[in-house]
């Protein structure tokens, strides 16, 4: 169909604005007012790419979306699918003497971490998702990519390269915004989503993996695709649960209201889901969900959801288990928050950690020897910031301050940063190193670590070249060492790694401390 439409359009050189008349010849633009297109004449331009050309690179900031008119493009992640691992202790006397960590990249197969999500696909800003094991996919005529970048100015989530000679339309937000209101365009996008991504999204929910293809096909035409404007409420805490949702685009803020205020539990991005607990539990929403930016979700009705859990007992048992765990956690949180203010509860959340780094401010001369030592032992990249929560005369410099509102999670173009059950953050393997989380973290607790890596050489297809790849990382408190470098290097006996339950029990008025002395 698109091929037929293009026959009547004379292609212009690269970078030339597309005439309104030409746009109106395309089916997806047919609902758009000609006056609007004429007024915004420069907002859509022709783009021609030769085979092998890079259309956009992952991690780059941009403000446009691309609509493919003809040709094929590949979309892939160049960043290694791995996280930063600093556990590899050096061997040999001299190397041990220095106790420097050799930070390296490790995939989840070789270094599994607690609460790591078991995903099979990586969500990107395109109509397809990428497989975890082989993050490459193909895009063709009639497909749009870069929506999130265009609408919300997030970094590009993947690298797109022309596989054949391609012609695309590159458009600015004002055009895309109007286009998304066009019925024809929406219908095309929705159809593409149902055909290409819904299957992988559903199967990315661990408990839905057992669904048979015929049921997914049955759902394909029954699900509803909904859009929400920034700030719009999707569901309220306490409302009757009537649907299950999959996030297709944008960020959904999930929060719970407590007597002391609102606690943001997560920012869900493409591929994440919500609403199952309410459907299986007491029939009411346990948390409030709202659109942080331009959000699109897939809604599965309660009827279809119940049909699904009846047909697939294994899905039901998995969901019930997940619901029970979540409800238990909610009950526990509610019980604690009912007795202490929210801020204190979050402070107590620190006590969930295995160990904490604390600085005794009455001894600390602010010489930053700890920060220097941390940087020296982690390839020059410090993971310690001498700021944090204070308890009396102690400053807690931990890997994550478990913010009430975890801003670091907003905007991750591949949804690689999220909360563990303990509320601390975890950075998943498919972090592309764009640095947005590091920039967003108000406390500087997320650092970008550079690694030498091999990436496809686009100038010489089939070859690899050495590149510097960045990955986000947080402090791991040097748990491999008996004494972290920052503690070892503190000349004033001010830095200590402590077991929080004992150390802060007295401060938080829970029980008498067994020992007033830090562990190390």
């Amino acid at each position: 169909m698109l091929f037929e439409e293009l026959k009547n359009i004379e292609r212009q050189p690269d970078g030339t604005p597309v005439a309104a008349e030409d746009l109106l010849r395309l089916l997806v633009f047919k609902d758009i007012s000609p006056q609007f297109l004429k007024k915004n004449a420069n907002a859509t331009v022709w783009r021609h790419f030769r085979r092998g050309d890079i259309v956009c690179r992952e991690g780059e900031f941009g403000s446009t979306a691309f609509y493919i008119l003809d040709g094929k493009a590949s979309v892939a992640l160049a960043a290694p699918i791995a996280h930063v691992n600093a556990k590899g202790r050096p061997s040999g006397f001299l190397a041990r003497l220095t106790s420097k960590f050799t930070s390296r990249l490790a995939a989840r197969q070789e270094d599994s971490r607690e609460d790591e999500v078991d995903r099979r696909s990586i969500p990107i800003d395109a109509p397809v998702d990428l497989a975890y094991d082989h993050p490459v996919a193909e895009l063709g005529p009639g497909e749009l990519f870069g929506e999130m970048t265009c609408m919300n100015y997030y970094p590009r989530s993947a690298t797109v390269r022309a596989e054949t000679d391609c012609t695309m339309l590159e458009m600015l937000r004002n055009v895309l915004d109007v286009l998304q209101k066009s019925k024809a365009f929406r219908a095309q996008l929705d159809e593409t989503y149902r055909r290409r991504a819904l299957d992988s999204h559903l199967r990315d929910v661990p408990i839905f993996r057992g669904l048979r293809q015929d049921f997914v096909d049955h759902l394909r035409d029954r699900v509803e695709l909904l859009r929400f404007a920034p700030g719009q409420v999707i569901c309220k805490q306490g409302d009757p649960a009537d649907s299950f949702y999959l996030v297709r685009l944008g960020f959904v803020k999930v929060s719970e209201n407590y007597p002391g205020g609102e606690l943001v539990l997560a920012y869900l991005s493409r591929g994440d889901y919500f609403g199952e607990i309410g459907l299986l539990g007491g029939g009411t929403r346990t948390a409030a969900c709202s659109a942080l930016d331009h959000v699109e979700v897939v809604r599965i009705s309660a009827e279809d959801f119940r049909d699904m859990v009846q047909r697939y007992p294994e899905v039901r048992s998995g969901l019930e288990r997940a619901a029970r765990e979540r409800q238990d956690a909610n009950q526990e949180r509610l019980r604690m928050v009912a007795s202490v203010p929210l801020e204190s509860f979050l402070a107590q959340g620190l006590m969930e950690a295995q160990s904490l780094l604390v600085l005794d401010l009455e001894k600390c001369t602010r010489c930053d020897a700890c920060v220097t030592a941390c940087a020296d032992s982690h390839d020059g990249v410090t993971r310690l910031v001498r700021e944090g929560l204070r308890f009396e005369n102690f400053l807690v410099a931990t890997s994550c301050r478990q913010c009430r509102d975890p801003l670091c999670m907003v905007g991750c173009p591949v949804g690689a940063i999220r909360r563990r059950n303990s509320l601390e953050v975890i950075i998943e393997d498919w972090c592309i190193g764009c640095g947005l989380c590091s920039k967003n973290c108000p406390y500087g607790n997320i650092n970008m670590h550079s690694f030498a890596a091999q990436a496809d050489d686009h100038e010489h297809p089939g070859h690899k070249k050495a590149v510097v790849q960045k990955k986000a990382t947080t402090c791991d408190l040097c748990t491999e060492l008996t004494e972290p470098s920052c503690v070892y290097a503190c000349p004033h006996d001010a830095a200590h790694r402590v077991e929080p339950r004992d150390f802060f029990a007295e401060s938080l008025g829970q029980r008498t401390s067994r020992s007033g002395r830090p562990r190390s």
Partner: protein
Amino acid sequence: MRIDRTHRGWLIASVAIACVSLLLYLRYRLPPGEGSMGGTAMGLWFGSVGFAFMIFAAALGARKRVPVYRIGRAQTWMRGHLWLGLVSLPVILFHSGFRFGHGLTAWLMALLIIVVASGLFGAALQHYMPRAITRDVPMETIYDEIGHVRAQLLEEAEGLIRQATGGEKTASDPGGADAAAVKAPVAVAEESAPLRTFYEQELKPYLEKPGARGVRLGDAAKARVAFTYLRTLLPPALHATIEDLEGICEEERQLTLQSQMHMWLHGWLLLHIPISLALILLGAVHAVMALRY
């Protein structure tokens, strides 16, 4: 480093070294008029031990340059630095027989006294100042970030003033039909003239040059009076803004105090370190000359 009960071992060891040295000195000292103590065997022994203590104390600087090397915890080195550095003074005095001599030896004695005195001063500062900073500067930030935080405070104050005096558009669309909303900031601007004047004449200069002398906003009590007076000149609608500005001033005062305390806490090292290095260098020269000639 805070001097507390954990130093007891070092204290006892240092006192023991000093007492043993005193006993040896009393046993082997030369009667008046019988030459220099430094040239005797016991004098050389005192000199060697004292110089060794000084070198160990000076090695702390080198230790700090390799923070991750597992060659002893930095705090152990610091304790050694404090106590052995202190004990080196009586040991060297026993070495010299309590005589300053002249020329190089006089210089060495003077340098040693300055080093030990500045070290004691620094130790006292490091004992008391961290507690004072923690108590008096609750809004403490990282020292290197102070400039950045100050710029943010100035920006924040500018924003508040713009908003209060109508220099900034309200949320309402100025081109829209809501005429009342458009007029609102102008009305505020007329009433808020004293606020603008106060900002231009007092607050802004203070935030731009917080260390300047004679500025009343730099004094908490005088600032309180100034803000109380300002409240009487302005409508209640602007009192929240005044409160915010007062908060900004308070934070600025704390940053200034933190800077001053930080300067005290670390400034003495500007004297202590170079003099220590000179002492070690000249001490080595003295040792070579004494042993050779």
